[in-house]
């Protein structure tokens, strides 16, 4: 099976702490990888390195067999959905304007309507981006990420501001993208139950890689889940 992503010995050092310590894993074509870990576990740092937003790391990251320090072309085959879409609240752009930003060829204009329909946001296309709810905004950013037919979708799950119904819709969209459109998904989440339902692989991160493998293996091992929950709880207590 083809490895789309290979991460070896990835280490990120901050002055007084290691944000990531010797992380090694691979993602194969068609995988649905759920990355779980408590706050401050290094999930965002990991994504920043993978997306070339943070280049101050030791180790190696390869996409499609090529070291990302050497070529940035891999970014054309990646769709990214950030945890918090940050923009000026009164930015004068409609949903269509925002999605079009990721459209590289004008000839594919019809693609916008197609994807907005697929994500149930077509009726919002002429609304200003600042007027949308958290759930709607999340779907707009998924639409943006899908504009260039990505092979890999990287999603940082939003933690607040999304209602339960939108969350369920978000999960069903992810499942469909992975199973029907064969898009490889790398998804960071806090929701252990959802990861259990959706992902076929799990990476459990807490600065070091705690576990990486098939999701059934993780969830059928009570000790592992308990260990993870305890680590997560400790981190939670530490933060408060």
């Amino acid at each position, binding site marked *: 099976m083809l490895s789309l992503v290979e991460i070896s010995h990835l280490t990120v050092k901050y002055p007084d702490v290691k944000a990531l310590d010797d992380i090694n894993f691979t993602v194969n074509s068609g995988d649905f990888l759920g990355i779980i870990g408590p706050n401050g576990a290094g999930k965002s740092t990991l994504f920043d390195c993978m*997306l070339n937003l943070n280049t101050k790391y030791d180790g190696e990251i390869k996409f499609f067999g090529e070291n990302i320090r050497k070529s*940035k072309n891999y970014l054309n085959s990646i769709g990214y959905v950030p945890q918090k*879409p*940050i923009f000026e609240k009164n930015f*004068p752009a409609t949903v269509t304007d925002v999605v079009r930003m*990721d459209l590289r060829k004008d000839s594919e204009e019809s693609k916008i309507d197609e994807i907005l329909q697929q994500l149930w946001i077509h009726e919002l296309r002429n609304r200003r981006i600042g007027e949308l709810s958290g759930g709607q905004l999340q779907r707009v950013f998924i639409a943006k990420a899908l504009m260039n037919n990505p092979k890999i979708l990287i999603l940082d799950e939003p933690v607040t501001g999304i209602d339960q119904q939108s969350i369920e819709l978000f999960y069903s969209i992810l499942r469909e993208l992975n199973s029907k459109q064969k898009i490889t998904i790398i998804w960071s989440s806090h929701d252990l139950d959802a990861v259990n339902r959706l992902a076929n692989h799990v990476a459990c991160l807490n600065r070091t890689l705690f576990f990486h493998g098939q999701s059934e293996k993780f969830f059928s091992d009570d000790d592992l889940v308990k260990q993870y929950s305890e680590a997560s709880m400790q981190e939670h207590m530490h933060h408060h």
Partner: protein
Amino acid sequence: MHRALISGIAIAILCSVIGLFLVLRRYSLFGDAIAHSSFGGIAVGLLAGVYPLWTAYGVSIISALIITRIKDRYNISGDASIAVLLSSGIAVGLVIIGLSGGFTIDIFSFLFGSILLVSVNDTVLILALTGSILVVILLLYRQILYSTFNEQQAKVSGIPVEKINYLIIFLAGITVVTSIQLVGVLLISALFVIPNVSAIMFGKGFKQTAIISICFSIFSVVTGIIISYIFDITPAGTIVLLSIGLFVGTIGIKSTGLLAKN
């Protein structure tokens, strides 16, 4: 007077378009800072006996790019870097003017604009620069808009965000110095900011907002030039007051709910 109108319309379009990107990047006062640094450039030109606008172009573009580099490198906030640029331009200008024997009529025309006196050569230059800048913006429209909307996402999408940022600063520098003839150093940011904050309240999409802003701007400039010609008052002040009038009108319409949100 027709030269003044043609130049005025070109500058109105240019300031609206560049200004919209600056306002959305929270760089509203950057135009003002570049204008003040161009004051230093104008003084250098007057002292050296070179056409002052040429030295103004050089000094303001270079200082704007340098201050942006310092801001990025040393993590200085945007408003503080604007303050540094603004005051250093004026300070340099004052010292040089002192050395060259004090204020002259030339200085006042740069401070407050002199669009009614614009020459044929100036008009040609203004039209050529406006055309060139608009072509650059149209060619790089997606990249400029995307990096204005969200820098991080634009980077992930493969857009060279830093280069685009410097390009915007460079284009803003040219625009400011070109516009000095219309409203002068002191009122320049009015043209960059006021039509755009009014248009943002009306427009839904980005292009619609830009078109509304250009319309507001052209209206203020053309009406301002005509009124000032008829009543023999300063065009700069009249243009800016008309622009403010449109802004107040927009707020009025918005607050009475005549402009439904959807």
